[in-house]
């Protein structure tokens, strides 16, 4: 009852309070429940670590991070963003895990001139045709992970491959990204049902095709199901290559031994020797019981640091949106991936690395950095962006 009263009070105050004493407001839409709950939890942990290290301030100004669950549902994300914009009057937005949610909330944010710093999704539309000065892909463009994976496949000499992804546009984009740089023969492209549990039929197809390697983009539970069944079927000898998210720490923790030896590509690794990263990984493991951070946690951490730098740059005057986006574009912060620079479409021009699932000194399964696949790589859509 008390809480209901609070709502009524804040509701009444909303219009009345003058704007000047307000803290910097950041709307954070989280996947706490729903299909990407694990990744949502990682995003939140990375974000909260950054907030803690900055003493709940951005650029020295008091800041408020309004975090709320939207259950991984694009429509609920849309509603939440409307509330952030109209009721809470946010200055920055971040949080959603999936591209469909990002695409759902983008237009409203851009129309309201609120910067959207993506802590994960990098849909091709926002990198190309529908790029906006208010969108910042602090993470990566979706296809780049797959492009790196294609290049790895060339370097490893895989002549024939089978590609597998869920049957939705993002799945086709990821496969398209892989094929962009892969020079060998694609023996089979398999598209599976969204949310599929049993993969025996697909695994039999893979065995029959006898490829040199398999490229799999299967996020969240689908990836866990597939890897468990793939290894159980004795296909361990056919190497599995994937974009980082199909073999990140969250998947490793859920699958265990079968992930051993999985090749995957990402723009970051927890053992990347960059001072800011060493500091981040150490602080993260201290705060969260020795757990290794995932790419998602690292990205969320970077997002907050990017906001911090921008608010400092504009001296706390976040109402001047032109200045804020100019400051964001400078990206004058210490990214955990090292040097950070945006291309003309506000997506980073950055290095991509090969990682392999291995055991650390204490026998714990985790990703190990193998080497650099692509240096200062830019996404394929930058040409479509007329900014």
């Amino acid at each position, binding site marked *: 009852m008390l809480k209901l009263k609070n709502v009524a009070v804040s509701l009444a105050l909303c219009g009345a309070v003058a704007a000047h004493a307000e803290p910097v407001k950041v709307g954070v839409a989280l996947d*706490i*429940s*729903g*299909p990407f*709950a*694990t990744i*949502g*939890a990682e995003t939140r942990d990375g974000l909260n670590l950054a907030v803690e290290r900055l003493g709940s301030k951005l650029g020295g100004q008091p800041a408020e991070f309004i975090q709320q669950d939207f259950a991984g549902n694009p429509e609920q994300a849309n509603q939440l963003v409307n509330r952030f914009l109209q009721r809470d009057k946010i200055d920055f937005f971040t949080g959603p895990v999936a591209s469909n949610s990002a695409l759902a909330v983008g237009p409203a944010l851009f129309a309201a001139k609120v910067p959207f710093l993506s802590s994960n999704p990098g849909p091709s539309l926002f990198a190309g045709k529908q790029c906006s000065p208010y969108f910042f892909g602090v993470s990566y463009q979706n296809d780049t992970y797959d492009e790196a994976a294609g290049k790895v496949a060339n370097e490893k000499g895989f002549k024939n491959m089978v590609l597998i992804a869920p*049957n939705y546009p993002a799945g086709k984009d990821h496969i398209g990204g892989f094929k962009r740089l892969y020079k060998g023969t694609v023996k089979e*492209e*398999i*598209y*599976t*049902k*969204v*949310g599929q*549990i*049993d993969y*025996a*039929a*697909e695994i*039999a*197809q893979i065995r*029959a095709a006898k490829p040199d390697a398999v490229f799999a983009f299967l996020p*969240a*539970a689908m990836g*866990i*199901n597939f890897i*468990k*069944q793939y*290894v*159980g*079927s*004795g296909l361990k000898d056919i190497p599995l290559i994937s974009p980082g998210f199909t073999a990140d720490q*969250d998947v490793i*923790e*859920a*699958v*265990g*031994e079968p992930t051993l030896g999985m090749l995957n590509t990402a723009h970051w690794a927890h053992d990347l020797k960059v001072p800011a990263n060493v500091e981040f990984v150490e602080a993260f493991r201290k705060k969260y019981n020795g757990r290794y951070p995932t790419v998602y946690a690292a990205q969320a951490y970077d997002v907050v640091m990017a906001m911090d730098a921008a608010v400092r740059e504009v001296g706390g005057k976040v109402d001047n949106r032109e200045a804020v986006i100019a400051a964001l574009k400078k990206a004058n912060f210490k990214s955990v991936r090292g040097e950070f620079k945006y291309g003309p479409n506000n997506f980073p021009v950055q290095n991509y690395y090969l990682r392999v699932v291995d055991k650390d000194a204490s026998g714990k399964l985790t990703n190990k950095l193998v080497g650099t696949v692509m240096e200062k790589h830019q996404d394929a859509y930058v040409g479509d962006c007329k900014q």
Partner: protein
Amino acid sequence: MDSIFVFEQLLNGLGFGLMLFLLAAGLTLVFGIMDTMNLAHGSLYMAGAYIAARVHEAGGSFVGAVLVAVVATVLVAFVLELLIVRRLYARDHLAQVIATFGVILIADDAVKAIWGPSPVMATTPAALAGPVQLLPELPYPAYRLVLLAVGLLVAIGLYVLVNHTRVGMLVRAGASNRKMAEFMGVRVGRVFSFVFALGAALAALAGALMGPISAVQIGMGEAILIPALVVIVIGGIGSVRGAFVAALLVGLVDTAGRAFLPPLLRSVLPPALAADLGPALAGIAMYVLMAAVLILKPAGLFPARA
């Protein structure tokens, strides 16, 4: 396409069907005998999977973990029956659906509070982790063979229990005419509690066994609940025999759709259209099957309450 490949896919279809049967058996039993629609069956499945995974990791014995999961889930189900389900027997199906949907919402939050939002690790017992050579050309995952065997055993066990034991006789008596059975001295309330516990044990068994080959996470119950409902509806709600036949049918149709439909379409349609259409059709194959069955037989293949 050689014959071994077709045979392998056949086996895969049967395997998937039997997995669905493990879950559907409990669901249809509770429905058939108590005329109660229990959506929280998926939550019991989730409970079984989580408990087995945690116990297996802590204790090391897989069989022990499955047993603990079954016993613990039955205890949870006992409380659930006592507090909620018992009061639903006399209500209409809609009230049952709504109340047990409420249980799902509570169960998902409870699991998150206990085990966190991330999936937990459920490992395959080492002895069954790899494939066995079924035929010279055909390695098959050992663990899936175990699933096949357990599914068949459960099917036989249920058949014997319902049709050839005293308990089964009481159950059938209570189901066909509750008042009459009570008059004859059968304590129907107790029989129903037993059936509900049995259904929960089957759900937990299904969850515990599915853990090593699927993601043990929140929402896993709902994800498999829909296919399980499709199975019991095709079979005729309440009929264990129907559920068995329907599970195999769904497993085969779904697997065949995924394995053979895309290449088939590619050979007759333009490639772009085939690439769009193939996976989409394969994805809805089981729903098309259900609609087709219900058009021809509106009460399923083996109507239990004719």
